[in-house]
Structures are given as C-alpha cells and as structure tokens.
C-alpha cells in the first residue's frame, strides 16, 4: 500500500492523503474510524475488520438491492470490501466511511448486473397493477394496523420483507433500498445511479406502494403477534 498519511483528529479536521492536505474538505469521518483507517494504512491490517464490521449489513443490502440472487450479492459485497481495502488510501474523508463503502458496493453490483444483462438480456418486469396512464394502483385498501418495530424480531416478518423486496424489479429495488434502507437522499441516490431525480421519485413511489401491497396479508396484526396464518381483514 502506498505511503499515506491520515491525520487523526476531531471531526472537521482535514485528511492528509498522499502527502496532500485536502484543503477545504470537511472530514465527515468519525474519530474512531479515522484512527482505524490510520492503523490499516500503517500496516495493521486487522484494524480493517474493526472498520468494516459495522458496515457489513449496509454493504450487503446495497448489493442485494441490485442483484436478486443472494450468492451474487455476497460475492459483490466481498469484492467491494476487498476493493475498499486496496483503495483505502484514496478515501478522501468527504463522506462517512460507510457511505464510501456502500458506493463501491453499489458500483460493484451494477457492474455485475450489466455483465449479466449483456449475457442474458432480460429484466423481471412485473406486470403490477397499472391504470391507463401506467401508474401503479394500490391493490389493497384495508386499514393497516401499524406494525411495531418489535415485530421485526419475528422471522416471518423479516422473511416477508425480504420476499417483498425480491419481488421488485432491479431498478425499483435499488432505488428503494438506497433511499429507505440506507437513507441516501433523493439527490444522492440519483447521483449514485446516474439517473434523474424525477426518475428516483417515480421508482420510489412504485416500490413503496408495491412493498405495501406485498406485506398487506399480515396487516391485521399477524406480523405483531407472530401468528403464521393471517386472518385477513377486509371491511367490505
């Protein structure tokens, strides 16, 4: 790895990379992350695990959002993390380390997807429910009993979320995950994917409504009680 100096300091201090101070660059990196980066660049490779471990779920989600197949998503996530290790000296500190890593993972997954598409030109276009104008029309209008976050402890709900996510097309899934799972802004999502902000909004709307419809069978409270069989509630 090239000789790189990363000046450890409080948030807001600049990073020194390749002998240059990134003037005017306000570091977004946490002090602990900075220290870990410095250790990795200084040859203490085991510090990389400490640095990456908290980011693993976000990295995997980023690749899984784009690649439907779990094995491919894991492969891309691993590749991204290895690339981050090799290119750590290029990290400028103008975003959080996790954001930088998720960007690498997103690019890795997109590259893999493009390769796959070239080999097999298809996309699992779902028919959805469209009206004449092509808008997504919600399928279900029953009252939604709020699912509390504690219900996420039930395996059934987590599996249902994964299934619902997998039912989205790649272009809707990637936008939904970046925005709602990883909390990128509309602007950041557009930039990362190289699409217009209006396209992000359109895809996000469709993805959110489709996710809601996909999870509707448990909305009578089954997700919260952990009951396997849903008693669907329809007021009409």
């Amino acid at each position, binding site marked *: 790895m090239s000789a790189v100096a990363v000046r450890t300091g409080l948030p807001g201090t600049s990073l020194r990379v390749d002998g240059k101070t990134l003037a005017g660059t306000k570091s977004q990196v946490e002090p602990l992350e900075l220290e870990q980066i410095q250790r990795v660049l200084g040859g203490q490779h085991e510090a990389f695990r400490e640095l990456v471990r908290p980011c693993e779920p976000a990295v995997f989600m980023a690749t899984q959002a784009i690649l439907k197949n779990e094995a491919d998503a894991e492969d891309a996530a691993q590749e991204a993390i290895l690339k981050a290790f090799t290119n750590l000296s290029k990290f400028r500190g103008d975003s959080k380390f996790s954001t930088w890593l998720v960007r690498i993972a997103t690019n890795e997954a997109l590259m893999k997807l493009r390769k796959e598409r070239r080999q097999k030109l298809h996309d699992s276009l779902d028919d959805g429910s469209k009206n004449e104008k092509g808008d997504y029309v919600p399928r279900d209008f029953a009252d*939604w009993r709020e699912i509390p976050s504690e219900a996420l402890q039930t395996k059934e709900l987590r599996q249902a979320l994964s299934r619902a996510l997998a039912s989205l097309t790649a272009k809707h899934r990637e936008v939904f995950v970046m925005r709602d799972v990883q909390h990128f802004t509309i602007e950041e999502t557009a930039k990362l994917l190289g699409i217009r902000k209006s396209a992000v909004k359109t895809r996000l709307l469709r993805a959110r409504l489709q996710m809601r419809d996909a999870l509707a069978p448990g909305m009578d409270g089954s997700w919260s009680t952990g009951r396997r069989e849903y008693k669907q509630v329809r007021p009409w």
Partner: protein
Amino acid sequence: MVIEISCEDVWREVSNYLDGDITPQLRARMREHFKGCKHCTAVLDGTRNVVQLVGDAKAFVLPAGFSDRLYQKLDRKLSKDDQL
C-alpha cells in the same frame, strides 16, 4: 377553500407527501382528502409503516457465515500480497 384532489392523484403523490417533498398547497389538498377517504388513508398509513420498518436496522440480517467467508477471503488476499 381547498381544491379537491382525486384518489389517483393522491396515490401519485403519496411518496412525496411522506418525504415532505410537495408544495404546501398540495399538502393541504391531500390532507383534506385523507379526512374523507378511508382507502387513501390506508394507503398512506401502510406506506409510512413500510418505510419505517425497512429503515429499521433489525429488518434485514446478513446470511449466516457472511463475515467468516469475507475475512477468509481477505486473509487469502493478504497472504498472497505478502508473497509478492
């Protein structure tokens, strides 16, 4: 006097409504619509709940053995680099 809005138009804007990405006028029209439309209220509540759930860190878990496989790969890479 708030101008009425159709259910279709509400569905088209429900995501922007949740993100606070609409004009105050449109927000007022939608709010008025929700008061009298049970279906659109259900769509709004459900969509909001989905966004809250998936945004929770507990929503998705890594595949079993993910970290072990990752660090085995990294160790292999490091030992390969050392040999060079």
